[in-house]
């Protein structure tokens, strides 16, 4: 390789992103790096820092903030002291006015070998409790949706920062050249919107590719501009050949240049993606049994079931980071009032699809190296808002993990006796991020990106890995 070519390639790797096919270039870079001088490149960080327990991750995001004391964190004292005042101080800032303690309308039962308790809201997920690692001591800082969503997805509720998925993509790349490394299915455009899957200052290939958005049903969710409605693929192929011929002529006049060469590849990749993407999204190719397992046959569970099934199809094709969002346009997991009615509806919509998803991942041998993460941007207060609702609670809440090298049937950390504050083995959102990166084989302190003169991290200057939860 002569200097010009090396230079050309080096610049290509630095400034252009090669869209979805950068793994091939990554290995090319690697070979080159060994053969020639070391090359500084954002892709060079792809060598895992530590042994990875999970190869890919899926985040089942429950937008609005599901209540932990009504789902996975039972509080007998809350039931006992229903209607009494909270026996300790409220946080300095609360989102809304708080009244007295409100007991859970649902009963908890123990399940599985582990005997972990799950409330009546999740009868199907409860059957998988021995695979769940229930994190009961999450806490964040922001009591409003926007700030909390951004904190959960990017680690910052104040600045525009790269999202978790884009950091993972930046660190690990992807295993499928014809698909994006990071997809987010039906994401919400409110409360941070694209910043929640954006790459900020990381290279453009790290950004998440949205499949539809929360205003569309999962059956209508598509990547933008993935189809040409006007001409058939043969005709488009003929057109791309013409463009390629024109671009090759131009190269001979304009001189060799990484971006010009990169564009030749980009058109080819785009053309391939046009056929790959619809194939992934063809859920009708799944057996009836599988579709039923995800609840696609039931209008109540159909939408989230489709999202989960789509997630599995992306995961098994090598996509690194998949997010699925349950964000009903009218009744999100945000029960400031009518906790009972709202949570009942939301839980019924996701319970069976999630259980089906876990069972399916397990049956296909994917669960062992896929990290499943479930939860919202915060939990809810044990105190009542109005007479039958719960307010936002970032001070203590529950998420759970499954698969991907975490202990099953295990509860980590605790909130206080009423479920207001995380008190034992507290896990800040930064700690969660550090732990996730660790499970995927990355040291959160070493996964850095230099921008505007500073090394940035997902976890900023914080983050403690919770190694107790590792299997």
């Amino acid at each position, binding site marked *: 390789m002569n*200097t010009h070519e090396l230079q050309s390639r080096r610049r290509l790797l630095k400034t252009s992103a090669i869209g979805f096919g950068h793994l091939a270039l990554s290995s090319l870079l690697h070979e080159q790096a060994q053969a020639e001088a070391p090359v500084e490149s954002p892709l060079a960080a792809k060598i895992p820092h530590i042994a990875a327990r999970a190869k890919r991750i899926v985040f089942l995001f429950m937008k609005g903030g599901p209540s932990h004391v009504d789902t996975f964190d039972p509080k007998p004292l809350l039931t006992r002291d229903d209607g009494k005042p909270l026996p300790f101080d409220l946080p*300095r800032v609360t989102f809304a006015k708080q009244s007295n303690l409100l007991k859970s309308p649902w009963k908890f039962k123990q399940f599985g070998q582990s005997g972990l308790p799950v409330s009546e809201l999740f009868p199907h997920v409860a059957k998988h409790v021995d695979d769940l690692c229930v994190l009961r001591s999450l806490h964040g800082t922001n009591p409003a949706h926007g700030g909390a969503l951004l904190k959960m997805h990017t680690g910052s509720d104040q600045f525009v920062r790269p999202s978790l998925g884009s950091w993972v993509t930046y660190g690990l790349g992807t295993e499928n050249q014809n698909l994006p490394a990071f997809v987010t299915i039906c994401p919400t455009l409110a409360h941070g919107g694209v910043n929640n899957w954006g790459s900020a200052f990381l*290279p453009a290939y790290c950004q998440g590719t949205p499949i539809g958005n929360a205003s569309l049903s999962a059956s209508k969710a598509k990547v933008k*501009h993935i189809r040409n409605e006007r001409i058939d693929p043969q005709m488009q192929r003929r057109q791309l050949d013409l463009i390629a011929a024109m671009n090759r002529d131009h190269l001979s006049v*304009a001189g060799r240049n990484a971006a010009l060469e990169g564009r030749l590849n980009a058109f080819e990749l785009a053309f391939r*993606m046009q056929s790959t993407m619809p194939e992934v999204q063809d859920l009708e190719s799944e057996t009836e049994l599988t579709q039923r397992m995800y609840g696609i046959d039931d209008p109540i569970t159909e939408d989230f079931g489709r999202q989960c099934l789509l997630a599995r199809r992306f995961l098994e094709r090598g996509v690194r980071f998949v997010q699925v969002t349950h964000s009903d346009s009218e009744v999100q997991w945000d029960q400031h009032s*009518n906790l*009972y009615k709202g949570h*009942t509806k939301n839980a019924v919509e996701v319970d069976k699809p999630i259980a089906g998803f876990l069972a399916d991942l397990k049956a296909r041998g994917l669960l062992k190296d896929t990290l499943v993460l479930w939860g919202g941007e915060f939990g809810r207060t044990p105190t009542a808002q109005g007479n039958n609702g719960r307010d936002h609670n970032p001070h203590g809440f529950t998420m759970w993990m499954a698969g991907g090298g975490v202990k099953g049937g295990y509860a980590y950390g605790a909130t206080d006796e009423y479920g207001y504050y995380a008190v034992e083995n507290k896990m800040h959102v930064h700690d969660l991020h550090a732990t996730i990166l660790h499970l995927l084989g990355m040291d959160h302190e070493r996964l850095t990106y230099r921008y505007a003169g500073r090394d940035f991290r997902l976890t900023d200057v914080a983050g403690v890995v919770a190694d107790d939860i590792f299997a």
Partner: protein
Amino acid sequence: MNESLQLRASLLIAACLIGCGSSVAWSGEAPSQEDLAFFEKDVRPLLVKHCYECHSGNETDGGLALDSRDGLFTGGDSGTAITSGDPDDSLLIEAVSYKNHDLQMPPSGRLDDREIKTLKQWIKIGVPDPREASTPTGHEPNGMSVEDGRSFWAFQSVGNPSPPTVADKDWGQSPIDAFVLAKLESANLSPATKADRRTLIRRATFDLTGLPPTPADIDAFVSDDSPNAFADLVERLLASPQYGVRWGRHWLDVARYADSNGLDENLAFGNAWRYRDYVIDALNNDKPFDRFLIEQIAGDLLPESNQETKTATGYLVLGAKVLAEPDREKLVMDTIDEQLDAMGKAFLGMTFGCVRCHNHKFDPIQQSDYYALAAIFKGTKTFGDSKQGAIMHWNEHTFANDEQTAQIAKVDASIAEKKKAASSFKNKVIAEIRASARDAAVEYLVAATQFKSTASLNEVASIAEPHGLHPRILHHCRLHLEYHRSDAVLVKWHDLASQSQSVRVHYTRLFADATTALASARKKDPKAKRTGDKLLNEVLAVLDDPSGLLAVPAKPEFAFNADQLRRYDELMEAARIAESNADDLPSAMSVTDATVVSELPIHIRGSHRNFGEPVAREFPEVMRTSSVRPIFPANQSGRLQLARWMASTQHPLTARVYVNRIWSWHFGRGIVGSTDNFGLLGERPSHPELLDYLARYFMQSGWSTKEMHRLLMNSSVYQMESTGNEESGIAVDPENHLLWKFPMQRLDAELIRDSILAVSGRLDATLGGKTVPLRNRQFVFNHTSVDHTKYDSLRRAAYLPVIRNNLYSFFAQFDFPDPTMPTGTRSATVVAPQALLMMNADLVADSADEFATQLISSRSTDAERIDLAYQTAFGRAATKDETNRAIHFVDDLTSRSLTRSDSVDANALHQAWSLLSQSLFASNEFIFIR
């Protein structure tokens, strides 16, 4: 607790109170063996276990070291950790007892009571501690000192260099050429040859107006044999109003311009366009940059302030703010931080944001500098007095007269009425559904016996529908029964569920009893809601609970039938459209002065809950241009003084940073590559003398931007070819920093779009006015995530809405900058989704269709059409090979439509030409400018 210890403790405290005065510190006297044993046995293990991870050795989080006695007393950022003898006055105890929600240690969880008691005891008895100091300083290393900083290149005053002597006397035509050539000569490089006229007019036209030259423009320039042809061209382009659209947009990148707030609550900035138009006008009128700066920072405070100068201060309001931040004090400081960061980067090339929490780690900027500036902005009002629920409004200045205010109040009322019409309709329908469900309560309970609580909605519907029941209500009813197995009213249902007839009999009677009992209670008291019977009261509660047994789904599409839903959607849409189209009060985003803040305490680690020393309003020490300190007015924020100081000809940074931006926008890279960072971590200037020459020339020419264009473009450097002596150039200077050739540049997102529209004759070149299709402060997205913002306008891209959190996909794919951060240098990536866009987006295909129509109708032969296409799209004739290839392509595609008849289908022909046109748009030659 050991009683003798306790006794000892109180004796010790008494002794200390007498012996040590009020400050109870451990004197030189060594602690007793007993106390030391207590420390070793109980205290040390506890500190090691819970505290050392973050507060020992090199880890001194919060500046606090707990692995030595000195560390304890020196304390951290928040002060000493311990007051000997007084646990209740010791921060350590406050932290571990978890009583203060802002100070809880260790973060992993509260210590148990026994451990806290031990620590209290330890403090009470005078903190016996044998540990030697490991010299914890508790302070982070600083960056450059202010003294060193003054000798850093960027903080030195602008020099007065003369153009250097060069060997090749013939090449240069402008003073700047000598600076560039001298560096090339010393690197043994030679500049590329002069570009031809076609290349030059294409380069200059895109550069100054963001549009391609028309074939007529090109012909006129190519045939102009005046020696001033290029200078004349530059003048013509500078006089075009499209110049302001292009160069105004450059400044809008730096100003992080957007039409919506983004971040947490994405409210429309319905009046931001006034600032955008102000910027475009300022460029077109060549407003002196010093004036431009002062107006944006302090236009409201100028003695001659007017609508225009107040609009300019929208600059300070445009940042993304966490509008629903419940902690208002945090919101204020976060907003000031955003303003300082944006202002520092845009005008001074300084990253002030770093200094909020600690002295700058690299640059000679202290925390005291930051809070001295922050005080000025704390005395500035960025938020308005109104809000929507938890969502704060930003400040605006209104130009409305009373009549307009009254008119808008009417519009507001009419929108509110339309919203109310929708919600009343919804409530009415839900009430009807609820009433009919209540009437059929027994039927629901009977039907619920027919299926299990895990049944699918389809199964439930097949049972519900024959009986006229609502499937989702029945579905919920069954779940409710499942969750209430021991409920006094519903327990019987579980007992009887196997015999539906018994359920019917039981509940018919029970509900009738409750109704009768209530009716008789109402005879006595018409307002009665309860009967005298406990069970019957519970029956009534079950029947009447709107979110209980017979809850109606909250979501209209689940609750309503098709007709009801259609009507509801119509009402909602009518309200939304009315709001989107409604006029706003004529007003501009702007700041004004608030209560003057003459000094502000340093916020330790950036926390607004932890104050240090107060600092008075000031300018950053390292940049001060005079030893005479400014006197800030007692009745103004100080922004005007700040702005005038920044715009002073003595300021070392302002002119340099701006001329470097102009250079960078012409040449694709600044003389200082890091256009927004002139600090230690920024890049050093490739041509420092040239930068100073430009800065001085700029100030001498009255801070005229257009004069800089003339200087830079009427030069040999600007007019070089974009290919040079590649072999030697790449060997010596592969990144072309020395400018041995003109850098080829990819068109910016807006230019790609505008060129496609311009070439196909679709572009609407109208200037100015409101273009965002949202009312001021309307939600861009509510919880429904439906995107109502359209980008189908054919106006120039600078007038398309810039929606934070959801940029127009064309912008987002082609590296439009993040509109929350000041951006002086855009990137130019190559990703596959860009290709998808060029292949499949309507904008591209529709334009190609239009272009094809024109080609077909205005020329009669294929060769002529192809020539016109190349002239219009690329500014040159097609070669013979290119013509043949294109004809072959068109023939190939049209021949597919040949049927038995020999005539070519007109649609197929048009499609072939359209695909050819689209290929031109997608090609590298179209979007890379040489």
